[in-house]
Each structure stands twice: as C-alpha cells, then as structure tokens.
C-alpha cells in the first residue's frame, strides 16, 4: 500500500520531468545580487517565450561559491551553459580544453557589433569561446563640491593636477582618496592604472601573463609614482581594515573627495549626494600615450562536456542580440558589450560607454588578468607597500619569487630598458 503510493509519486515525478528531459537546458549562473538576478530571470523568461519547447533550468549560485564549484563542474558533470569572466579567467579553462569553441556563432556582422577589445577577450587565436554580455568602467568618482571647496576647479586630468589636487584637499582637511584595502583588490586598481598610464597595455598584459619580472625597473616606476601620493598621505587612514563599502562612506560623509572604483558604486550613492558625485577617467601621466582602461567583462560559455550544446548555442546567440543585451544592462545599470544596444539613461553609464568605446584597449582588472595564486600574493604586497613604502624592495622580491614559481624563470634576467 505504502510502497504503491510512493511508487505512484515517483512515476508522477518522472512524468513531470521526462518530457522536458528531451530539451532541458541547464544554466549555472553566478548572478546572485538582486539586480543581476532579476535581470537574468527576466531574460530567461523571455528566452522561454521565444523557445517554448526548451525547458531552461536556471541555477543561481552566490559568486564566491560559484568560483570554487565551476572547476568541479567543468571537469566532472558540466551544465550546458556557465557564467564566467573574459580574458585570463576564460583562457585558463580553454587551454585544458574545457570550453566549447563557438566561433560558428560569430558572423562577421556580429563581430562588427561587438567592442573589439571585448571580442579579443573571448578569443584565443582566431577562435571564440564565449559571449561577453556586460562590462563597466573603472575611474575616479569624486565629490564636485568638495573639490570646488578646496579650490580645485576641474577634476584632475593629468598627474601634476592630481598631485596638486591632493595638496589642496589636504590643506582643507579633506582626505584626497578614499580607499579600503581590506579586500585587497582596491589597491590593485591603483597598480593597474599607474601601470596602464606609465607603461601601456602591452606591457601590462605581458606583466600579467608572467613574462616580465616584478623587479623590472618599469615596475619600480609604478611604485615610485604611488610613493609620491603615499608620502603626501593622500590615501584615507586605516585603509587596511576597511572594506570598499566602508571606505565609500567617507565620500558620502564629505571626509574624502575621490575614489578609484568601478561603476557599481553608483548604485550606492545616497539620494542627497548623488547630484554632487561625478566621474572622470584616471588621469594621464605620459603625453601622447594611448588611453587604456580597466573594464571587467562578464561572459557566458558552453562547457566542452555539455549535454545539450545545440540549445546552449541558441541561448548564447540570444544573449548576443542587441535588444537582449540592452534589457539586461538597463536593469543592472551596466554597459552592454554589443555596441548596437542602447544604454540606460544615466549620466555615469552614458559617459562610461563613451569612455570605453573610445579607449585604445581594455584590461580586465589585476585579479582577473593574472593567476589567482599570483594575484593573491601580489595584492598583499600592494597593501603592505601602502602601509610600509620603505619595504618595497622585500615586497617586490616576494612577488617576483611567486611569479617565478608560477610562470617559470625568465630567459633574460630582468630585461629592462
């Protein structure tokens, strides 16, 4: 009796599952924050309307545990679609053959509609392995009123004006830069931009892939610029124990004037401060030099071992469409990678889109561009340097030792100059 009824339940369950089983598309996503979550649930619902015979199983994971699990999925029993990041993070899965080559989806017309740098970031050689769907700009977010109060009429456009803005703000008792290095990556933003402005993108990417020693003089140049700001105490105090969220409060309370951060900060602006907030690209340092930006690109991919690759391709093609990217990015207040998609009517987004479209090249952000292992060690080094600039030599040796362990010894000893 009992057995029979439980059997009936199992059969009923099977009846529910099996017809869908023929065309089930399993999608594992890391979009757990409220805005991206809602945006993607709407997108999946729309996909279902267009393809009613495909049953999408949309699994959302919190982004930290997702990072740990994706390795198990890709090497074990993979879903049909995974969310991930462009550049090095993608390549580390392409090299061992864990991601599907989807070059067939990239028609010449589609290629023309996608930001060139973003296309490079999902390509290995001539082949494409993923679909970029969103990115955002990184730059100096600042309080226009505080700069004005300190006598800084224009936001800093070059190094000298950045340093003089620091002096003026310090004189007014305002901390020039809010920064919270507890989570380490905010310090890496400073490293990235100083490197991009001093040495350019090609050098930066060589450094990121371990082809240049951290004891190279050009790397030392980065720290010498940084030291200039440190010696003037331009960074907010107690940054080592503050998260970026805690440090942004300094901007809103008027204690600090500027912050180098990604555009995601805009969502946190309090209503009464929002109008006084503004944004400018990180100042240039060398004249007549390309302008390169950090713009982390998020992507989706098909695992090489996916079961339903056919429908996965349909899903990826769907996400490439301008109208779909527009809907997703308007909801998340980010920038669509498809240049034909319109952006939200928001001054930070509109200017961010221009900034990135006109950039001479894009990097992904330190902890996405280099090995996790090295990123972890190097970012601690940056934090230590910000606290104890006098330990620079030892810090660089530590980072270089890690680089050599991970990427191997370099053929020519520190080929500087």
């Amino acid at each position: 009796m009992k057995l029979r009824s439980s059997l009936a339940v199992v059969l009923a369950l099977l009846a529910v599952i099996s017809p869908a089983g023929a065309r089930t598309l399993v999608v594992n996503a890391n979009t757990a924050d409220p805005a991206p979550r809602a945006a993607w649930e709407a997108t999946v619902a729309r996909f279902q309307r267009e393809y009613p015979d495909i049953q999408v199983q949309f699994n959302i994971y919190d982004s930290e545990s997702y990072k740990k699990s994706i390795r198990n999925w890709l090497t074990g029993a993979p879903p049909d679609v995974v969310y991930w990041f462009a550049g090095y993070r993608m390549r580390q899965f392409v090299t061992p053959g864990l991601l599907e080559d989807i070059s067939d989806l990239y028609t010449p017309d589609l290629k023309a509609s996608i930001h060139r740098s973003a296309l490079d970031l999902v390509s290995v050689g001539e082949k494409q392995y993923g679909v970029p769907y969103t990115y955002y700009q990184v730059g100096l977010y600042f309080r226009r009123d505080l700069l004005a109060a300190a006598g800084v009429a224009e936001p800093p456009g070059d190094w000298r004006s950045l340093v003089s803005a620091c002096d003026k703000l310090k004189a007014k008792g305002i901390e020039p830069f809010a920064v919270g290095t507890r989570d380490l990556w905010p310090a890496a933003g400073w490293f990235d931009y100083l490197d991009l402005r001093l040495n350019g993108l090609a050098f930066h990417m060589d450094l990121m892939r371990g082809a240049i020693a951290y004891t190279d003089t050009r790397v030392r140049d980065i720290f010498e610029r940084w030291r200039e700001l440190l010696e003037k105490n331009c960074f907010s105090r107690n940054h080592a124990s503050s998260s970026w969220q805690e440090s942004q409060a300094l901007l809103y309370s008027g204690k600090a004037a500027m912050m180098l951060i990604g555009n995601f900060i805009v969502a946190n602006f309090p209503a009464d401060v929002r109008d006084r907030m503004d944004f400018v690209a990180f100042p240039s340092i060398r004249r007549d030099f390309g302008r390169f930006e950090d713009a982390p690109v998020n992507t989706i991919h098909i695992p090489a071992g996916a079961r339903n690759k056919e429908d996965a391709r349909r899903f990826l093609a769907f996400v490439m469409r301008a109208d779909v990217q527009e809907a997703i990015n308007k909801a998340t207040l980010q920038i669509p990678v498809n240049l034909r998609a319109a952006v939200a009517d928001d001054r930070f987004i509109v200017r961010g889109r221009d900034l990135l479209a006109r950039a001479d090249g894009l990097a992904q952000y330190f902890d996405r561009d280099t090995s996790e292992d090295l990123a972890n060690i190097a970012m601690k080094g940056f934090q230590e340097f910000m606290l104890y600039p006098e330990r620079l030599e030892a810090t660089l040796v530590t980072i270089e030792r890690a680089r050599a362990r991970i990427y191997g010894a370099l053929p020519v000893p520190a080929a500087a100059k």
Partner: protein
Amino acid sequence: MSSAKGSPRASPPVDAGASGMRHAGFSTVILLAPACGLFALFVVYPIVRSIGLSFYDWNGVDIPRWIGFDNYRELFVDPVFHTALANNLRWLACYLAAPVMGLVLAVFLHQHLPGMRLVRSLFFMPFVISQVVVGLVFSWFFNARFGLLNELLAALGLPPVALLDSERWSVYTMIVAGLWPQTAYCMILYLTGLATLPAELIGAARVDGARGWSLFRHVVVPELRPVHFIVAMVCAVAALRSFDYVMIMTLGGPFNSSTVLAYYMYEQTFLGLRYGYGAAIATVLLALMSCIILMLLWRLFHRERV
C-alpha cells in the same frame, strides 16, 4: 554431573550464554557499523585523500602532478607559513587564559542566590552567539573610525588606536574576541564540574579546617581534574582551528600578519587554487593538533594511574 547432564535446566544457561555472546558480538558489529561507516567515509577517507593530495601540484583543473615532498619543502621556507604557525601558537598561549577566567567565573556563579540562573545564562550568552556575530561585533568595537573603543579612549582623553590595522596587534585583537565566548564555554564546563563535586568532600574539608583559598586550591581544583582535561583540550583545539574570527575580522591582514594555519590553508586552496599546497598545510595542522591531543591524553592516563 550426570544429573546436570540429564537435567534440562542445566544445559540452557550454557547454551544461552554462548549464543548470547555470539549474538552480542554480531549485534555489536551491526550497531557500530553505521557510525564506523560514516566515520570512515566522512573523516578517515577525507584525511587520507587530503594527505595524498599534499604530494601533488594541482590547480583544480589540470591533471594533478606528483611532486613528492616539494609542498612540504616549500612550507619549510615559506615566511607566511611561519607567520601562521607563530600566530597559532599565540592563539594557543593566550587561550590558556580562558580556563582560568572560566573557573573564576564558575566559582563566582556557583552560589545559590535568587536570580542566579538568569545571571548564569547571561554569562553563557557569548557562547550561544555565532562566532561570526561575535567577530562582527568585535570588529566594530575595534574599528578605528567609528568603534566604541576609540570613543571610550576619547572620553578618557587618550589618543585613538587602530588595532586591526596594525601588523603587531591585529592577532591579539582577534584573540580577545575569541576569548569572550571561549571563557563562557569553559565557565559552563566548570559549573557542571562544580555541581558534581560531592558535598561531603567539601564538608569534610571544612571540618579539617580548610576554607577560602586553601579549600579552593587543595580540594576544589584537584577534584576538578577531569574537567581541567576537557577544558584544556577544548581550548587547545579551538585555538588551533581558529578560522572564523580571521575570516570575519581581518582576512589575515594587514597583508599576512594575522593569518593562521586554518585560514592560510583556505586561502591557498580556494583563493590561490593550490590544492596540493593547501592540503600540505592541512596535514601539518592535523599533525599539530594530534600531537597536542595525544600529549593531553597521555597526561590524563598517566595521572589516572598514579
């Protein structure tokens, strides 16, 4: 003999005993099997696998590469590992304060006064609160910008301190947070110990003229020996596996100054994606814990025999 043989009553007990024994042996195995099976599957197997993994270089994606003792060799010269180990020893040393404070509190609270139950529960509260919450509360307390500590110092006319930013003090700051619930736990263990002390013993000691400090020192403290053992073990294990406070309060920072073995293991495995190296740290931590527990067990048995 013959009557016993002839009697139907004489043989059953022998039979019953034998089959009972056999039965007991069988049922023991049956009853132990689930627990042993689960223990083997969830404790022994992971330990063996983890020790095995520590001889490999593996990033979670590529094929694991056998490197023998290289991970351990690297640990030997890794300055961060040394920092973590030293910090664990600091935790261990400072956590010895928990039993002392716990015993003092227990003796104080082991009085039959109205409302004592409530007071006891209040003192026990910190242990009931999640370690994550304790960590958060203390990180706000010590926060250099808006923390209560600096408000108090300011009220006393003292300069503010930034303990969690300091490579020297951040470890001790976390230990203070950890000691709060740990003391409560020791206190409750001692309270149960005190409750089981035979009243006659105390009475007899009083008759013999022991009171106050000497009663405490020469009668109560020695009688609580089994409790001391448990408390010491619990504190040693808690100090060695401290992870929550590091994760919540400092992330091992500034840079690596306040990291501990458990956190460094986590960081290397899941942030640095060095599964083999993380496993090697885990193995060292396991060895360290086993040593301390064996030492305590040995002392316990040694004393029992004496």
